[in-house]
């Protein structure tokens, strides 16, 4: 996978995660909701950073979809937390791919390495079982 392809895939992943966190936040309250909103903000920032990297490479960042089908029904806080864990798990996968596709010490590599750890920690915080190799296909 080329770096540009990986960036576009990562952008698509982050666009989906941002959408998903909107759903997550709608089903939570109090501290968990605040945490979901913090994660939403973080992923919005990440999405924008990836978009900027794509633009800097001379390509046009693809836009997100208006809506995404959820992997399972989300109608209570427990399902929302599970969705959040799934979103972070997916974000870790996109980060893995981006790390693998980028050049040594490139800006995208540096960012993706940090994103992988961040997503793994967040997934764990949402109650996802720890993975021996976060993000690995």
């Amino acid at each position, binding site marked *: 996978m080329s770096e540009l392809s990986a960036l576009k895939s990562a952008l698509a992943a982050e666009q989906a995660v941002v959408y998903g966190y909107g759903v997550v936040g709608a089903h939570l309250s109090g501290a968990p909701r605040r945490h979901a909103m913090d994660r939403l903000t973080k992923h919005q920032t990440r999405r924008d950073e990836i978009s900027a990297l794509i633009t800097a490479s001379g390509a046009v960042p693809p836009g997100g979809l208006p809506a995404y089908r959820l992997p399972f029904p989300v109608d209570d806080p427990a399902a929302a937390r599970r969705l959040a864990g799934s979103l972070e798990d997916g974000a870790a996968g996109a980060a893995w791919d981006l790390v693998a596709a980028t050049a040594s010490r490139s800006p995208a590599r540096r960012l993706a390495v940090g994103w*992988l750890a961040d997503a793994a920690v967040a997934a764990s915080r949402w109650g996802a079982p720890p993975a021996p190799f976060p993000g690995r296909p």
Partner: protein
Amino acid sequence: MLTHLSRRSILGLAALGLAGCKAGSSAASGRAEPDAAALVAARSSEAVLVAACMATGLAGEAVVHRQHLAALGGTETVPTTLNTPARSAVRALLRDNADKLRSAATGAVDGSTAALLASIAAAHEVAARE
């Protein structure tokens, strides 16, 4: 649009062709030579973590570190005498090791090696917070 899926397909990402896009062998064989030093260092750290976890009674975590060691192409050796560390010391070791692995992942020449090192760093980061 889509249903659930593989770890990386999250919401609708399967439609974007992500599935199977990554070769990502975790075996150490065939890795680029320039990353040999990073792999040796990572294997050494994992072996220490295996020993530290066993000495501390963290058998479950030791299993994970053995998996890391194997993915890095290492084999466990009988540890030399290891004082029983406090669990807090193991956590500190994990955090320190995660920092080093992230740095190694950033500099790795081979993409598969970089991803593996970054992933292990992430796992250590998670474990350090538990």
